[in-house]
């Protein structure tokens, strides 16, 4: 279709919207339902493939890039998510699009420290324990440091899971951690299985967000909690302009310098702009059946945590 536009191209080049519309139309006549990849219009299948490739390319440098782009602040956002979750020992978490394990590791750390405090409290309360009983409780701590808590990391991309497993090994995480290859739109899990479902910086890359939300609802136990951490909409006009400037001018450059990959990071900033803002996402979550849906803005709306419950 593009070839057929040969002589018309210079004219159309000065009207980018027109050219895009024509190309989009041509592609649309060929492929299935239309959706977007950053600012391009593509078919759903094409979008899934392109996104898979983006993460295949960036997997190795994913964590370095996150630190560079957000100047390390992404770590704070993720800490806040897990603190909001406030998991107790025995919680079963599924972290979808969990790729390199950031949320999973934080969950494990949190539960471990809660468990330690629990055991310490128990010891303090029973100061008349015999020495046998005290050493039995040490044994308990050793055998069950997480108190039966478990996290399943689910991601659609093999490369990201690979990096995640390597990190886990490197950092010494093994207990209570599982890695599953799966699609957020069609999770390989049974109904009513998990206490908490998280998706951090992943739902933006899902092609059918409605399906992902429905799946989240399905796999959660009644009383289970849905938590979503994602880039959102900045309403403050000055901050918004600075944010746009930084996103479009600096981030692709960082991608080129650090990861040798401009295009993936151009996609990243475009996909953030395409994603529904806070209220719209809240409504989508309610539509999937969740109750008491709420959101919390972080960093003036650059990022938001949405929360909902299955009752």
């Amino acid at each position, binding site marked *: 279709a593009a070839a057929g536009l040969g002589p018309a191209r210079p004219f159309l*080049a000065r009207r*980018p*919207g027109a050219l*895009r*519309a024509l190309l989009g139309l041509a592609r649309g006549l060929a492929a299935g339902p239309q*959706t*977007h990849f950053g*600012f391009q*219009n593509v078919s759903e299948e094409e979008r899934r493939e392109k996104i898979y490739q983006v993460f295949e390319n960036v997997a190795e440098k994913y964590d370095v890039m996150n630190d560079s782009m957000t100047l390390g602040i992404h770590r704070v956002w993720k800490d806040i998510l897990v603190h909001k979750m406030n998991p107790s020992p025995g919680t079963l978490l599924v972290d979808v699009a969990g790729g390199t394990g950031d949320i999973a590791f934080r969950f494990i750390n949190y539960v471990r420290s809660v468990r330690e405090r629990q055991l310490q409290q128990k010891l303090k309360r029973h100061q008349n324990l015999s020495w046998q009983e005290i050493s039995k409780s040490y044994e308990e701590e050793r055998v069950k440091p997480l108190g039966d808590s478990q996290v399943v990391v689910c991601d659609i991309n093999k490369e990201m899971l690979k990096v995640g497993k390597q990190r886990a090994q490197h950092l010494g995480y093994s207990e209570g951690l599982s890695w599953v290859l799966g699609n957020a739109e069609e999770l390989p899990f049974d109904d009513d299985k998990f206490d908490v479902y998280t998706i951090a910086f992943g739902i933006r890359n899902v092609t*059918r*967000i*409605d*399906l992902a*939300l*429905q799946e989240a609802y399905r796999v959660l136990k009644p009383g289970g909690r849905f938590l979503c951490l994602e880039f959102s909409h900045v309403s403050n006009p000055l901050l918004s302009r600075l944010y*746009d400037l930084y996103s*479009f*001018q*600096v981030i*692709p*450059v*960082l991608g*080129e*310098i*650090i990861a*040798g990959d*401009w*295009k993936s990071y*151009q996609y990243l*900033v*475009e996909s953030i*702009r*395409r994603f*529904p803002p806070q209220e*719209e996402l809240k*409504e*989508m979550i309610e*539509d*999937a059946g969740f109750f008491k849906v709420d959101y919390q803005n972080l960093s003036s709306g650059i990022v938001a945590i949405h929360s909902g419950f299955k009752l």
Partner: protein
Amino acid sequence: GRAGLSRGRPREEEDEEEEEEEVMMEAEGGFPLYPGHIPTSPLQKALLAAGSALAALRDPYRHDMVAVLGETTGCLALPSLRDKMKHHPEGYRILQERPRIRLSTLDMERLRGLPDGTLGREYVRFLEDNKVSPDTRMPAKFVDDEELAYVIQRYREVHDLMHTLLGMPTNMLGEIVVKWFEAVQTGLPMCILGAAFGPVRLNTRKLQVLATELVPWAIRSGRNASCILNIYYEQRWEQSVESLREEIGILPPP
């Protein structure tokens, strides 16, 4: 239910078109002019130049960063090179025909079969001895003119031939000498920076040889020689390296 399904889909087409146009203009400096072209704003070019310079200094083996540095800083040198080519009959032909030096376009067997001392034979020997291939050259991305993108591409592809003509291997020392020659020849800031900062990583013995013999020779040759981009190398495989050196004006290596 159904309401949820419709909201799950992306926003309406009209919204998208407008949003697209607006942010497209903001995000990029224009429209791609050749395959692989990434249009960039002046700010982005400045950031790329600074970032790639630092990255290349940290890790000299990041050829992609050296390439990016060349593209983002060549805005004065590249047009002047292109004009030199335009005003020379052989250079003009190269600009018209746009030959590319790649394994797929070279007949390696034939070149290997040429007599010793010819450009073709020595070039293949150079590639094999140093275990390099002409296919590892990065395509241009950030040059905002299609003809200039070719000029820098040609410069990159001719680099190995420079090694052959100057008789320099691909170790740190050899690369620096070739960079000095190229810096004088092309005026590309990337070559100048590479030539100036490359020696930082050499030990004193090598630095001495560099300073006393190799660099002065490279500079003299660079000055004396005609523009190296004006030679249609692909038509001169049978020419002997010595005669080609004389023709261009490269002084015999020390």
